[in-house]
């Protein structure tokens, strides 16, 4: 059985690799077709992020929020729900963190922690709503969470403009945070900050929860087979609700880390889209917490590469979204390599028979 599981894993990894390779190939084709300076565009895109310390720093900075939403989606999806409220939870997390930062005047580190706890609670409440509606009313979590994201957006903007709006700014920005609220930078020449460390600690915590606790085991079981879990005496409802709260807590924390790490005041005018990116990251990481940083690093690298390319050449930044879309489809396409997978399973069954025979 152990051998078989490995073989299936290989197919999964292979499919991910094929998907990444194919989507990059398609994008190279697009660049070659439409660009006036295809070679310099490709160079900027592929090795641009490695050409200076500042740009390498940019990759790490871009990776940090993606780790949080990738983990959030991993957690939300474990229970088998398509709860897409992580987008709203990330945003509301940043709003709640702003409130926590500006309402109180506590000693430096304590105030920062208070604001982050605000963000985590707010994020948890957001993802809890579709979960409760699912468990209690059997409402489709996909639709309710999509609607909820818009509620989060407008409610968040209302809170910022009504209570924290800085009249000296032209846009709807909040007042500036105290210097003690800004996460300390780790390296000179970059904006890499302690937020990245918080992200990695969160990876470890989520990995521990999912793999080393009975809660994680039960949630995974509920996600895989709801009915079986019920018959083995697991309270599916509370497992679902627990996992959804946790998913939102992670996303909310991500919102506050991004806010205090990269900004000095609340500046979002719309949903930042990190939640949707989290879906791709969770898929590439195959819903395993330990692979999330790698997947986030990959997407962040693509982003910074595309950004450099769009500044220097005629290829717009949005090409990244095209790559993302192709990758999601190809990785999730079960039919790709299915014959190869079938062959592996058959071969192993034969080998097992030989051993036993």
């Amino acid at each position: 059985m152990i051998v078989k599981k490995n073989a299936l894993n290989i197919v999964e990894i292979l499919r991910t690799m094929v998907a990444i390779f194919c989507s990059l190939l398609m994008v190279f084709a697009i660049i070659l077709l439409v660009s006036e300076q295809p070679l310099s565009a490709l160079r900027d895109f592929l090795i641009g992020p490695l050409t200076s310390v500042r740009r390498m720093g940019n990759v790490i900075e871009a990776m940090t929020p993606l780790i949080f939403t990738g983990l959030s989606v991993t957690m939300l999806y474990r229970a088998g729900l398509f709860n897409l409220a992580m987008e709203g939870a990330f945003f509301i997390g940043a709003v709640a963190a702003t409130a926590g930062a500006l309402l109180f005047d506590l000693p430096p580190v304590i105030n920062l922690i208070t604001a982050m706890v605000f963000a985590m609670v707010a994020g948890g409440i957001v993802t809890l709503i579709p979960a409760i509606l699912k468990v209690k009313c059997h409402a489709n979590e996909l639709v309710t969470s999509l609607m909820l994201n818009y509620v989060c957006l407008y409610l968040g903007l209302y809170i910022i403009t009504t209570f924290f709006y800085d009249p000296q700014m032209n846009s709807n920005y909040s007042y500036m945070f105290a210097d003690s609220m800004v996460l300390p930078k780790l390296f000179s020449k970059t904006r890499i900050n302690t937020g990245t460390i918080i992200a990695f600690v969160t990876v470890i915590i989520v990995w521990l929860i999912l793999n080393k606790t009975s809660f994680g085991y039960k949630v995974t079981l509920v996600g895989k087979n709801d009915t079986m879990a019920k018959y083995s005496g697991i309270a599916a409802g509370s497992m679902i609700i627990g996992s959804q709260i946790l998913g939102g807590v992670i996303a909310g924390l991500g919102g506050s880390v991004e806010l205090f790490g990269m900004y000095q005041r609340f500046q979002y005018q719309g949903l930042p889209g990190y939640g949707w990116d989290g879906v791709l990251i969770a898929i590439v990481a195959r819903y395993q917490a330990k692979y999330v940083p790698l997947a986030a690093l990959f997407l962040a690298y693509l982003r910074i590469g595309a950004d450099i390319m769009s500044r220097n050449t005629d290829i717009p930044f949005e090409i990244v979204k095209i790559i993302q879309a192709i990758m999601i489809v190809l990785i999730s396409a079960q039919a790709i390599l299915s014959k190869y997978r079938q062959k592996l399973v058959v071969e192993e069954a034969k080998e097992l028979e030989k051993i036993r025979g």
Partner: protein
Amino acid sequence: MINVIFSTDFFFTTIRVMTPILFAALACMIFTKGGIDSIGTEGIMLTCALAAPLGSYITKSAILGVIIAMIIGALLSCLFGYVTISLKSEPVLAGIALNTLASGLTIFVIYYATGEKGSTQSLNSPTVANVQIPLLKEIPILGDIFSGHSVLTYLGILITILLAFLIYKTPTGLRIRSVGENPEAAKSVGISILKYKYISLILAGALCGLGGAYMSMSYVSFFSKEMIAGRGFIGMAAESMGRGTPWGVMLSALLFGAADSLAIRLQLLQLPAQLIQTIPYVITIVAIAIYSYSRSKQKKG
């Protein structure tokens, strides 16, 4: 205050903002009837909203622009079908991919078509006309509310009637429904599942095309990025609230239109704009929760 809200203007705006939601909801209804996930509606509509002004700009004809949008919608919808049916992608993920693709691709294309990244305003493409209905427009109040809308709005209402007929009164409709509700049973009586899935995909895609074209050729006269702004998702909500029947779907689209229109009117009263904007979404969530709860009770009872 009541006067400001419930004026003929309010009802006129309600119908105006209902139209794209109606198209989205009808598309979701056809998707759902054929047993296909409808989360990609948002992205298909967005792409079509760009295809319409580009098509009408190139052909110099508004009608051709709308038709091109419908064709693009049907093609994208079939692509989604191919990915989920033949490549066996998880439908929700494929839908998210489609939406991501649309939001990137549309900006990519307008950048090459116009040199700008925000909108196609500079193209001055032909738009779909608003029409006054003879006789109806003479009637006081009713004339002000129901006359003078876009051709596409009247087309949407006509299509609702046609779909009600198609789905419940024709063999094709029966087969689409059976393929969606019970594919095994449909297969056992010799219905080609693939054929009827693709019929629903093409129909629903074309409806998305009409919805997108309405946004960029009637609602406003150009494409701007992310202009669908969740209307495809609201269509999903309207479909599930309307219990999947054409009339129910139209009624819930009208409800969303009214909520949206109410939000626009309330802003005139100096009430906080952003808080008002949450109203349609909150109503949706509450309505879906109540509907789902009552349905699950019925099943148990």
